[in-house]
C-alpha cells in the first residue's frame, strides 16, 4: 500500500475526514444525579430517554438505532449490561465501552451511526447505577488492575488519581490550594443546576481541611459517587431541519487509547487526550482551539483533572491552567467558561452518564437553554470531553450551532 509522506505517527492515519452527512443533536434528557436512586437502572434509562425524545418531538418507534454506554458491568451487577438496560429494545442496538470515557463515546458513536447513512435517528443513552455495589462502589475498581502484577499490591481507584495528581503538582509546581479552586468554582456553578447532587458554596480552606483520603487527594477534591442516566437524540440534517429551528451540530469527534502500561508513562500530561483533541479539532476545522472554542466541558471527576484536560485540549498552556482559573478565565463570565453547569464535581459522577451530561451541558449552552447556567459571552463552538480506563483513554466531541 502506498504510504502517505505526511504520516501521522499517532491518531488517525488518513486524516482527510470527509464529512459525508451532517449530524445534529435535537433532544437531550437527564435524570437528576443522586447518591442513591430508588429507581432501577432500567427505569433511569427510561426516564432520560423519554425526556430526550420529548424534546426532539419523536417517539421511540421513530428511532432507527440505539447506542448504549455504561461503564463497568460490575456496578449494575449485570453481565452483558447493554441488553439488560432496555428490556423492550426491538431495535438495532450496540453498547460502546471505553471506561470512564464511555459517556462521550456514546455521542461519538451516535454521530457515525448517522453520518455513515446507517440510521437517520439515533437514541444515544448513558447510564450508571453505582450505589448498589457492595461493600462500596470503590470495591468494584479492585478488578480494573492487572490481576497478576497490580491487584496484589491492593490499590483502589483513588490511587490512580492521587498518583497522577501528585506527578502533575510536582512537574508544574502547582500547589493544592490552586487546584482546589476548581472544586470551589464547579460546586458553585452547580448551585444553579437543577440536576445537581452537590452544588454549593465552599472555600479552598474547606477542600484543604476535608478528610485526606489518599494524599494528595482530599474528600472535596473528588466528585461524588452517583446514580443517573442521560440521553440524546441525534439525527441527520434533513430530519433536524424538520423537527427544530435550533439544531446543534456535531462538528468533530475524536478518541484515543494509550497503552495499558500506565506504570511506564509520564503522568503529568495526557498526551492521548491531546491526540484525541487534535482529531476532533481537525475534523471541525479548528486550528487555534484556545481562540475558537467559546465554552468547554472538560471531564472533572477530580479537580486537578479539569486542569490537566484543559491543558491537553490546548485550551491552556502546560501547567498553567490553575493560574488561569485564579484569573477567572474559566468562570461562567470569563473568556473561556469551563464546566459552567458545575461539572462532575458539582453535579455528580455516575460514570458514563456523567460523560454524556458534559455533552448535554454543552448542548444547552449552544442552544441557549442553559438558564441560570448560561455563560455571559455568545457561544458558537464548544468542546466536551471524557477520560478513562487506566489513565489512558480520552473521547472528545466538538459541537457548533
Amino acid at each position, binding site marked *: 500500500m502506498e504510504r502517505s509522506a505526511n504520516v501521522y505517527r499517532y491518531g488517525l492515519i488518513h486524516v482527510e475526514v470527509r464529512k459525508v452527512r451532517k449530524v445534529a443533536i435535537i433532544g437531550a434528557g437527564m435524570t437528576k444525579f443522586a447518591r442513591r436512586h430508588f429507581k432501577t437502572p432500567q427505569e433511569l434509562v427510561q426516564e432520560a430517554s423519554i425526556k430526550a425524545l420529548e424534546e426532539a418531538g419523536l417517539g421511540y418507534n421513530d428511532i432507527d438505532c440505539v447506542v448504549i454506554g455504561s461503564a463497568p458491568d460490575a456496578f449494575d451487577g449485570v*453481565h452483558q449490561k447493554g441488553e439488560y438496560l432496555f428490556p423492550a429494545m426491538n431495535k438495532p442496538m450496540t453498547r460502546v465501552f471505553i471506561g470512564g470515557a464511555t459517556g462521550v463515546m456514546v455521542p461519538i458513536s451516535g454521530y457515525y451511526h448517522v453520518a455513515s447513512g446507517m440510521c437517520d435517528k439515533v437514541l444515544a443513552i448513558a447510564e450508571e447505577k453505582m450505589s448498589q455495589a457492595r461493600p462500596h462502589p470503590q470495591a468494584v475498581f479492585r478488578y480494573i488492575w492487572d490481576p*497478576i502484577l497490580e491487584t496484589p499490591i*491492593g*490499590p483502589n481507584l483513588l490511587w490512580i488519581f492521587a498518583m497522577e495528581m501528585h*506527578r502533575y503538582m510536582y512537574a508544574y509546581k502547582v500547589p493544592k490550594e490552586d487546584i482546589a479552586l476548581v472544586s470551589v468554582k464547579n460546586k458553585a456553578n452547580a448551585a444553579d443546576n437543577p440536576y445537581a447532587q452537590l452544588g454549593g458554596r465552599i472555600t479552598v480552606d474547606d477542600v484543604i481541611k476535608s478528610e485526606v*483520603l489518599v*494524599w494528595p487527594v482530599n474528600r472535596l477534591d473528588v466528585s461524588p459517587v452517583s446514580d443517573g442516566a442521560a440521553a440524546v437524540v441525534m439525527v441527520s440534517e434533513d430530519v433536524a431541519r424538520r423537527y427544530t429551528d435550533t439544531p446543534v451540530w456535531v462538528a468533530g469527534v475524536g478518541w484515543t487509547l494509550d497503552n495499558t502500561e500506565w*506504570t511506564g508513562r509520564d503522568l503529568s500530561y495526557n498526551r492521548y487526550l491531546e491526540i484525541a483533541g487534535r482529531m476532533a479539532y481537525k475534523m471541525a476545522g479548528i486550528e487555534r482551539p484556545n481562540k475558537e472554542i467559546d465554552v468547554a466541558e472538560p471531564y472533572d471527576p477530580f479537580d486537578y483533572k479539569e486542569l490537566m484536560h484543559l491543558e491537553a485540549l490546548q485550551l491552556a498552556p502546560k501547567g498553567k491552567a490553575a493560574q488561569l482559573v485564579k484569573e477567572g478565565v474559566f468562570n461562567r463570565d470569563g473568556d473561556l467558561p469551563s464546566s459552567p453547569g458545575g461539572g462532575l464535581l458539582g453535579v455528580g459522577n455516575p460514570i458514563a452518564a456523567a460523560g454524556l451530561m458534559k455533552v448535554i451541558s454543552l448542548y444547552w449552552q449552544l442552544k441557549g437553554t442553559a438558564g441560570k447556567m448560561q455563560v455571559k459571552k455568545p457561544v458558537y463552538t464548544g468542546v466536551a470531553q471524557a477520560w478513562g480506563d487506566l489513565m489512558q483513554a480520552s473521547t472528545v466531541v466538538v459541537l457548533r450551532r
Partner: protein
Amino acid sequence: MIRYVPKAKYSYSAGQAQSVFLNGLKEKKILGTVCNKCKKVYVPPKMYCEECFKPTDGWVELKDEGIVHTAIASFVSWTRDRLEEPIISGTIKLYGSERDYVFPGMFHRICTTYDKVRDMSIIGAKVKAVWNEKRVGSIEDIQCFKEV
C-alpha cells in the same frame, strides 16, 4: 432489595511474557523485553512491541533500582475502610530506555515516611528493591522500593 453475590472465579493465564518476568522475580531479577528496532525496553514485559507491532527480540535484566516518578499515601483500603497507617505506593522509573514520555516502570509500595510524600521529597528520589527472603515468583517477592 435483591442481594446477589456473583460466583465469578477466574484463573488468569499469565502468558509468556509475564511468566518469565515472575520467574525472574524469584531469582531477584527484574527482567524486561527489548525491541531491537526502536530500542524500547518493556517492564512489565510484552512479547510484542506496541510501537513497531512486531515481536520483541529478547530479554534484558534491569537494575533493581530506579527513580520515584510519583508517590501517594493511602488512608483508605480498597473497600474504603479507614487505615491508621497509610500505605505508601507509587511508580518507579527503572533505568533502561528512557524516552520523552515512556520508560520501563513498576508500580509498587515505597518504604518511606508520610512526611516525605507530603513534602514531595520522595518524588525524584533514588530507590532500590527490598527483596523478600522467601520468593515464590510473584510481584509480592519485592517487599517495597526503599530510598538509597
